[in-house]
């Protein structure tokens, strides 16, 4: 059985853990380098990207995870996790860094502050309708040729469709929170890719 880690520095770790366990995985909460070294894949949860980035630095995980991403560790990031995996972060802190594992440019809080947070139904390639919960969500503004777009959203604000669920080789990213719903199919896709 594959061991899947959930980065457990801050955020909605519990929801990811329950979902992955319900799918039959052995789940490890990752707070240390040793724990990170023990997993076959890693989920970066939702939370505050500035906080998680800060804690990656202080915990010594930042560079180790960076090296593992380069070596092809499968990773799935939701919301804050997507931001951390992106290449360019717009409207972030001036010192905001990210791993660049997904060739994306994302705008933090690109759909607005909390009052603008929303639920919508997404049409995911190969799966059909999947519930999407967007909480102060990042918006994917542009993406490279190597990114496979698996779902888009037209938020009706005149800017057209933006990707909301993407994959680039072994790295997956969603700007929303599948873990907050009862629908585990995106996690299942990720597990099947391990």
């Amino acid at each position, binding site marked *: 059985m594959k061991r899947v880690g959930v980065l457990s520095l801050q955020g*909605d770790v519990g929801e990811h853990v329950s979902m992955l366990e319900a799918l039959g995985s052995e789940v490890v909460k990752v707070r240390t380098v040793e724990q990170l070294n023990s997993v076959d894949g890693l989920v970066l949860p939702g939370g505050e990207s500035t906080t998680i980035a800060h804690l990656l630095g202080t915990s010594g995980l930042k560079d180790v995870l960076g090296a593992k991403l380069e070596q092809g560790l499968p990773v799935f990031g939701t919301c804050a996790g997507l931001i951390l995996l992106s290449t360019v972060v717009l409207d972030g802190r001036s010192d905001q860094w990210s791993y660049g594992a997904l060739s994306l440019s994302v705008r*933090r809080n690109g759909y607005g502050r909390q009052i603008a947070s929303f639920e919508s139904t997404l049409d995911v390639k190969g799966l059909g309708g999947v519930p999407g919960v967007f909480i*102060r969500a990042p918006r994917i503004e542009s993406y490279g040729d190597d990114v496979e777009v698996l779902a888009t959203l037209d938020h009706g604000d005149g800017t057209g469709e933006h990707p909301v669920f993407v994959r680039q080789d072994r790295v997956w990213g969603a700007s929303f929170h599948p873990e907050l719903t009862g629908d585990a199919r995106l996690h299942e896709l990720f597990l099947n890719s391990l």
Partner: protein
Amino acid sequence: MTSSTNPSVTGSALVKRGLADMLRGGVIMDVVNPEQAKIAEDAGAVAVMALERVPADIRRDGGVARMSDPLMIQEIQAAVTIPVMAKARIGHFAEAQILQALDVDYIDESEVLTPADEENHIDKWPFTVPFVCGATNLGEALRRISEGACLIRSKGEAGTGNVVEAVRHLRTINAQMRRLHSADANELYALAKDLQAPLALVQEVALAGKLPVPLFCAGGISTPADASLVLQLGAEAVFVGSGIFKSEDPARMAQAIVEATTHFEDPSVVAKVSTGLGSAMKGWETATLEQRLAERGW
């Protein structure tokens, strides 16, 4: 793959509770100006609470404590990228309407401010912005949830730097939840009556063994050890009010509490971040307090 304009819903319970889920494992810090907000964000805060005076100063100065000046809230919103919360007085729905119009990310209907209504809390369901409310016991928590609160924080005693009341309230809420969880279905009606809480919520807690919304801790947390203590007692995140900016070295204290909150189960990390921190806020012995803020709200 097809896509047209996707219909969407804002302000649903899932969306409102969702932000509280994202704050789990984090530290929400009271700040009174953009400079403090930047220090908080730099230290890894998950959100800031914008207010004019920290509770320790409200306690010292007396007078009526109200919602903050919108200008101050806007300056703080402009200074940081993390969520910005603000406080409204208990029952003061007009202050809450103003805070929603200001696009704050969370409203704290807070006993730290002077209550505006001695019987009624705000009906929080019609709002798009989510609310956090304090509670000293499970009945109070469930009454707030029935009014639409999306997040509960144990009250503690704000502005004292003394964690004793926070511990009391957390232990009380947890013990009462355990009692419900182990109760026979026949007992829940009488337990709901004792708790003065809606039966449906009592049944939900009895089944799940936990609140239907996240439970955070506030009131008196002023060291990394305090944060570790309340997380081990079951809090999912902490609010730190006066404890940071009334300490000797706020930036270091803020960082240390953030790290202790993440690594609360690892005493070696909490020991490391506690080392050479300088003095914590001076604090108050709660037994000698003239005014207990936790008694506000009902």
